[in-house]
């Protein structure tokens, strides 16, 4: 079982990093830097390797915060590198050509980044959130000793799976995935929540080749959905990846069990009633604007660079393909009748 986790931790994206032309002050133009970026890592962590490569070419004066773009799209630094690659390169580009900037941080678009500290903070925060989702509280993470925290972060920085497993097992963040993976189907029924981050992009036209897939040139074209997958008791035994993805996209795949006319609050955890100014709660909005599931097609699901079969048990995916902060990052391409 550990094999898959090892592959995930060893996964890396070859990057070819170019200095932005506006910042080149020498002739000839400096050659691009070639870096192997860990999938589970983050772009700002590569700066110590990249900066020396370009320092001679940079204009004088102190640099701003470093940032990256892909085809003009500023890259969100707190998204793991592997996820960015899976999401933005429909047809995987190897090496992946990125542009680095040492000036002009787009602070109206990107959240500020103060180097490794910011990345670490973002990581710990996500870990806390995952802990809360799994256990209903983040005590284990908050109570981590300082040395443990340091070692956990170091293990992620250095891609040291052994060290990571040693520390993270203390956090007791097993999910429903563990119950079923080891018990071989005899698992106890367990209701649980699994931390998932979904990155959804929609297309309205079909394409056969990934090369023909439309380019993502704006983050507005991607729906980021930070919603846990809920697994209820026995159904966990048969819960597939497809079930999981559909369960957190109720707007595209409405729950068949609920009839929208009855306002049953209890069942429909994922639906919200729509308030109006008069305080009326009406649910018709949901019915009208939900696409019937016939017309919506899941075209692509990518996790850790893999496109698993949709009927794979979700528990296996959770057990083996999660990132170190215990989130499962899933890139989904949907074909919908009409793009909003």
């Amino acid at each position: 079982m550990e094999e898959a986790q090892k592959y995930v931790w060893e996964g890396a994206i070859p990057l070819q990093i170019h200095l932005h032309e506006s910042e080149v002050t020498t002739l000839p133009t400096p050659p691009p830097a070639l870096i192997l970026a860990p999938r589970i890592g983050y772009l700002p962590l590569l700066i110590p390797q990249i900066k020396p490569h370009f320092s001679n070419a940079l204009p004088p004066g102190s640099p701003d915060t470093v940032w990256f773009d892909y085809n003009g799209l500023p890259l969100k630094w707190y998204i793991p590198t592997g996820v960015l690659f899976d999401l933005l390169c429909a047809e995987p580009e190897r090496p992946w050509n990125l542009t680095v900037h040492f000036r002009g941080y787009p602070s109206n678009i990107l959240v500020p980044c103060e180097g490794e500290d910011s990345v670490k903070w973002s990581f710990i925060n996500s870990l806390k959130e995952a802990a809360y989702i799994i256990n209903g509280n983040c005590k284990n993470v908050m109570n981590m000793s300082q040395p443990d925290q340091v070692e956990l972060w170091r293990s992620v920085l250095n891609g040291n799976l052994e060290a990571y497993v040693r520390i993270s097992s203390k956090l007791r963040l097993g999910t429903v995935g563990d119950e079923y993976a080891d018990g071989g189907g005899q698992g106890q029924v367990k209701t649980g929540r699994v931390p998932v981050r979904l990155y959804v992009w929609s297309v309205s036209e079909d394409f056969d080749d990934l090369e023909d897939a439309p380019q993502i040139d704006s983050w507005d074209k991607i729906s980021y959905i930070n919603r846990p997958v809920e697994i209820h008791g026995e159904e966990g035994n048969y819960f597939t990846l497809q079930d999981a993805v559909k369960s957190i996209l109720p707007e595209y795949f409405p729950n068949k069990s609920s009839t929208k006319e009855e306002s049953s609050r209890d069942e429909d955890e994922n639906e919200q009633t729509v308030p109006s100014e008069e305080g009326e709660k009406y649910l018709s909005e949901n019915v009208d604007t939900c696409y019937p599931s016939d017309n919506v097609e899941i075209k692509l699901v990518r996790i850790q660079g893999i496109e698993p079969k949709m009927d794979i048990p979700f528990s296996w995916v959770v057990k083996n393909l999660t990132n170190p902060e215990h989130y499962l990052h899933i890139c989904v391409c949907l074909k919908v009748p009409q793009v909003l």
Partner: protein
Amino acid sequence: MGTKEEAQGTLSSTDFGVSASAFILNWNTVCSSFPPWTWVLSHHQVEGYLSLENILLSSTQEEHGELSCPGPGKHSHQEDPIDVDDATLVHTNPCKVHYYDLHIIYCNSYRVPVLYFRAYDSDGEPLEFDEIENDLPAYSKKALSDSKWTFITQEEHPYLNRPWYKLHPCGTSEWMKLLFHADDALAKTGVAIELYLVAWLSVVGHVVGLRIPFEMMKQL
């Protein structure tokens, strides 16, 4: 809201919508001289959030900042439940006029609402964090200085792909639990959902100087 969730100080996504609905009605009734909170739909018309934008925050010398109506024109002379200091209507220094946008967004992970806000000057230029800090009530400033990483942070807005300021949610359920247990009336009448946001905002609003009139707690 299931008793279990009530006991934990959290609420479901559905209940958030219910509470928001009640909150809007309540606010528009009690705070009629204030601009209304609105419900904004996002994510393909299913998820939504509460929005109050373009609110004036002007700090006087003596008191901590208080959110008030944007300009004398909108201020009514009737008995106003919100204690609007006359001084807030007079902008002696136009440069000190700061506008705030507030969004209340449901967090699926922690199962509580989260306050997102951003601030800008009269030219629409975003404010620097230390300018915002100066606007904040004194007790907020202290909490901020005590812990840089866990109170107000700048993070991406869940829907708008822009950096906004956010109040950290991980302690919310704890103090909401206390709030509900402390109030017998709430426990008995069982209208916890409808009042959840009022109660929540009465605490959270303090951070940005937004006062929730007591009348709102009585509205049912």
